[in-house]
């Protein structure tokens, strides 16, 4: 991506955002991306896809999600519910995780995330379709606190999805990196990225640079349905073979 020669001010509070993240928005929403504001790496606004107006909430620049960011995302979801009944909501994810900060934790970061999820749940019940596109980093708590709660989840092939990179996983589990790398060839869940995440059923479809992404998004919004199909997908694609059957076994045994 071509960078602007001019220096971006340190406290860039208004549109346009950094050119790279702007480019992603334009790729997804065309000219209507102008309706999306970027403030301290939180995206909120309204745009259009396939002639349908949609509400947009998201993160950019690989930011960390803190209490205030979660609150701003929630506020925009509430705004959409109140002012635009049944309007689809597109969630964009480019975040490295939850803010790793003691004060954030002390003030109840988990509760701020729970509140954001409740707002999205309310939107779904009130007929708003929820579609996520992972555009950059979609890691850990930052992905769980809104993006993974969508009806359908998509990812650009350049996105990094997962729990954590193999190096970090090795540091915590004390399992050597080469061992994890070797295992990840047969265990896609250990791999980091959009394609392995799709094998697990966590992503419906991965969009590549060659795809007509605007068309893909319009189609995704049009056909989104609220059933959670991830366990079925994971089994069909072979990346998560057990989950669906275990769940069914619990349901069968408990019905006896």
């Amino acid at each position, binding site marked *: 991506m071509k960078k602007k020669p001019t220096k971006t001010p340190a406290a860039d509070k208004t549109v346009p955002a950094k050119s790279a993240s702007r480019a992603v928005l334009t790729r997804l929403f065309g000219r209507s991306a102008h309706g999306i504001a970027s403030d301290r790496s939180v995206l909120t606004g309204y745009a259009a896809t396939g002639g349908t107006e949609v509400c947009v909430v998201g993160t950019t620049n690989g930011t960390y999600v803190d209490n205030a960011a979660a609150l701003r995302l929630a506020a925009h979801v509430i705004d959409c519910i109140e002012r635009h009944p049944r309007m689809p909501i597109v969630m964009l994810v480019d975040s490295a995780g939850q803010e790793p900060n003691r004060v954030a934790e002390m003030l109840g970061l988990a*509760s701020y995330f729970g509140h954001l999820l409740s707002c999205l749940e309310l939107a779904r019940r009130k007929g708003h379709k929820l579609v996520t596109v992972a555009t950059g980093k979609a890691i850990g708590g930052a992905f769980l606190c809104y993006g993974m709660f969508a009806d359908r989840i998509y990812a650009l092939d350049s996105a990094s999805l997962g729990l954590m990179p193999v190096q970090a996983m090795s540091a915590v589990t004390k399992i050597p990196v080469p061992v994890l790398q070797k295992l990840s060839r047969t265990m896609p869940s250990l791999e980091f990225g959009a394609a392995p995440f799709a094998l697990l059923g966590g992503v419906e479809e991965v969009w590549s640079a060659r795809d007509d992404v605007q068309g893909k998004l319009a189609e995704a919004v049009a056909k989104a349905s609220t059933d959670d199909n991830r366990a079925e997908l994971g089994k069909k694609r072979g990346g998560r073979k057990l989950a669906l059957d275990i769940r069914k076994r*619990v349901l069968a045994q408990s019905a006896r």
Partner: protein
Amino acid sequence: MSTPLFHEQNARQRIAAIIDAGSFDELLPPPERITSPYLAQLGIPVSFDDGLVIGRAKIDGKKVYLAAQVGQFVGGAVGEIHGAKLTGLFMAATRDRIPCIIIIESGGVRLHEGSTGEIAIAETMRAIFECRARKVPTIAVIGSDIGAYGGMGILSTCCDFRIMTEHGRLGISGPIVIEKWMGKKAYDSANRALVWKTSGGKTKYLLGDADLLVHDAASAVRDGIAKLLAKSRAVTLKAVKVRHKELADRLKRLGGTSAADELWKRLGIRDIEAASLASGPEFVAVAKGGKAGRL
């Protein structure tokens, strides 16, 4: 012999101690030997219940679904099987309109199974909200040494209610991770008083994130559950707007507070030392006496 404290008990003991005697019917019990193929490939010992005990029981004669995480097994972390058992249990609760209780003891996603546990937690969140949409009560109990962290911390906030003991901790990033990020000066993970004041049951109760703060004993946890079994919290526009204001006010009023004792003071606790030593119920009384502005 004196009764062990709730945090000293293991998952099966906790279940046995909070339910009507002999009423537990375990689903997918250990004899079915459903074990993690991931851990096996990594050469790590497996467990026949994959670290999660689930089943049906009765509390005060009322039917409940129950799950209890086994902290001794990979820190109670959520892998594919563990997570699928949890999702299935909440789905059964929705189907049968029976309250569902989860006794959390987990650091979150099981790293050894990578993203499978993460997706399982997301699926379980969907299942919890299905319960709530049908007014089927969902209750998280947080009272173990390990606490409720990572994805399990977030998941607990999706339930209608959270019952904590003074021993329980609720958060996302744990103290060791934050210490790595911010340095020992900002967060010394070995400072237990600070760790508990950051994420412990008392602070969470003061803030209003824990609905009940009870004594570190199974009987007290049981009484707490019994109080909430007939209640649920609908996710309505009014409810989320009230909550939004609470959380916005909290950030505005307390966002600049970094010292834990200062937070307690601002929330109406006068005698910090006495409150630190108080049991759960004593602390609740002190908090109310000081008219702690629960946010």
